[in-house]
């Protein structure tokens, strides 16, 4: 069992969630409430990481953020920060890769809230922020929760894009999914077996728990 890889994966999943949650809430809510020409294009871009092969996404991220790219060079020269083959690169990759998993459920959840509830809140004297906290967020909560779980679990298991952006540096970028691949490559099927089973059980538990919680939330309403 590669505990180092597992803890790295858990850390990456947690930080990705932390970074993506505010962005997902903002973008999902905005897409749910706004109508404009070209909205479909933005929605398509949001879903793109879901349909693109992870290697293609990883390749473009590598090409645009790597040391040879203008962005990569500028970051290196100005902040002395490297964006590829380290945890930062991994984080960027998994954040981009998980945008659809976060934004889509959040958008659907906000779309499902009747628009006159926000109006009723405004007429009752609630500021936009109070309306968000006291009305919209509690109502969108099941959707937000399942988005968070999906993002977390999906990050735990991601492979292609992480490999492209991070390589396989133990303790730095070698996640559990890459570790499983390595074990299989080196004919350590017992090791692969253990880790694969663990990942399977963790994912199943998380998703089942979120479904259970969502069903309860919806029922008690």
């Amino acid at each position, binding site marked *: 069992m590669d505990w180092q890889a597992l803890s790295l994966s858990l850390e990456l999943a947690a930080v990705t969630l932390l970074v993506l949650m505010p962005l997902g809430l903002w973008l999902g809510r905005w897409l749910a409430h706004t109508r404009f020409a070209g909205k479909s294009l933005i929605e398509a871009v949001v879903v793109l990481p879901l349909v693109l092969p992870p290697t293609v996404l990883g390749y473009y991220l590598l090409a645009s953020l790597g040391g040879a790219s203008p962005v990569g060079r500028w970051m290196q020269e100005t902040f002395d920060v490297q964006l590829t083959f380290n945890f930062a690169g991994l984080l960027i990759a998994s954040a981009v890769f998980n945008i659809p998993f976060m934004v889509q459920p959040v958008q659907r959840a906000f779309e499902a809230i*009747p628009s*006159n*509830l926000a*109006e*009723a*809140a*405004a*007429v*009752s*004297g*609630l*500021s936009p922020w*109070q309306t968000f906290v*006291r*009305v919209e967020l*509690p*109502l969108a909560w099941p959707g937000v929760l399942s988005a968070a779980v999906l993002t977390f679990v999906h990050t735990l298991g991601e492979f292609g894009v992480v490999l492209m952006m991070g390589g396989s540096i133990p303790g730095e970028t070698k996640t559990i999914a890459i570790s499983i691949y390595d074990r299989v490559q080196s004919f350590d099927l017992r090791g692969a077996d253990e880790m694969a089973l663990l990942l399977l059980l963790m994912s199943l538990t998380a998703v089942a728990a979120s479904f259970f919680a969502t069903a309860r939330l919806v029922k008690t*309403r």
Partner: protein
Amino acid sequence: MSALPVSNTGRGLRVRVSQQLPMLLEGEFTCESGELMALVGPSGAGKTSMLRALAGLMRPTSATISVGDEVWSDTEANIHLAPQDRHVGLVFQNYALMPHLSALDNVSLSLLHLPVKERKAQAQQWLDQVRISVEQQARKPSALSGGQQQRVAVARALARQPRLLLLDEPFSAVDQMSRRSLYELLAELRRNLRIPIVLVTHDLMEARHLADSIVVMDAGRVLQQGHPAQVYRSPRNARVADLMGVHNRFAGRWLGPLSEADTDAQMGWLEWLPADAVTSGPHLRVRDKRRLISGQMVTWVVQSDGLHIDTDEGIELKRANPGLVAVEARVTEVRNLGETTLAKASVVGLEGVSFSLIRSGPQRRSLCGGQAIRVQVDCDWVHVMPIKAA
């Protein structure tokens, strides 16, 4: 419509709205404090949009809206208060209660400026006032009946201590029982609140029954404001007559006063014409409001109250009222509906002209198909309008 003074001394509502796009919305009206005003019109007339403009949820291109000495909207002065700053109570058509909060917490939402304890206490008082029991107050909206949800919505609106109360189609979704208790609640509110109350409805019977004044809207425009009976009896034009459900609408030509006696009595003559305007019907002597030109084609209406079927009592009536004109007619259709009978009777000698007669009580037995009757038209109930539609 005459221009309204901008200054507003009482606590009443003064509204002037004008907008072409994205949809037409135009009109002026007023509602005094303690008065219940009904905004009536068919669906799509702009009633709800008008309500939204009052609540600040919509910003018309041009508007002045004031309640008492508070100006809520004045587009020329670039004033448009947010809904939060208006102190308006709005009861939405489908109540718009927060599904995740109990009835008590829904009402508490209007009282966020208070400390938590006081908030609950006040919310409870408002819910008590609309007769929601303590046990019901703890329930989520989905566990309450439609009528109860509506009363929670009313409590939420009142908890805001509004300067204007708005109700959007409050009767549309409640059963007859809750409807009656809502009438009582409204009557109570009007007595106790002393603020303007505006009610949107498409049900004219309700509007006439409840309101102190009604505003008739159609296709985005305010057509007429007045006391319900007055609007019903003298609609401004044919469209208002249609909207008010005036069935007996006929064509005619205005002849004006024909003698000095007519002029002195402010009376004029109306020539009744059938649809083809070839044959000529009886002449009616009616009130002259000096708004019509002699020879002008007109539309005229007569309310059911002004149509009597000739019986012995009718002859008694004739003696007491010289303004009755007898018209021969034949009953063509009789429909019995619950406690009333609707009948159509075509007028003899006037092609395509027929009366709609509504009868209830013992009178309804006297009508049957094919029967020849004499209808007495009471000229006092005749109202003449220019032919131009809205």
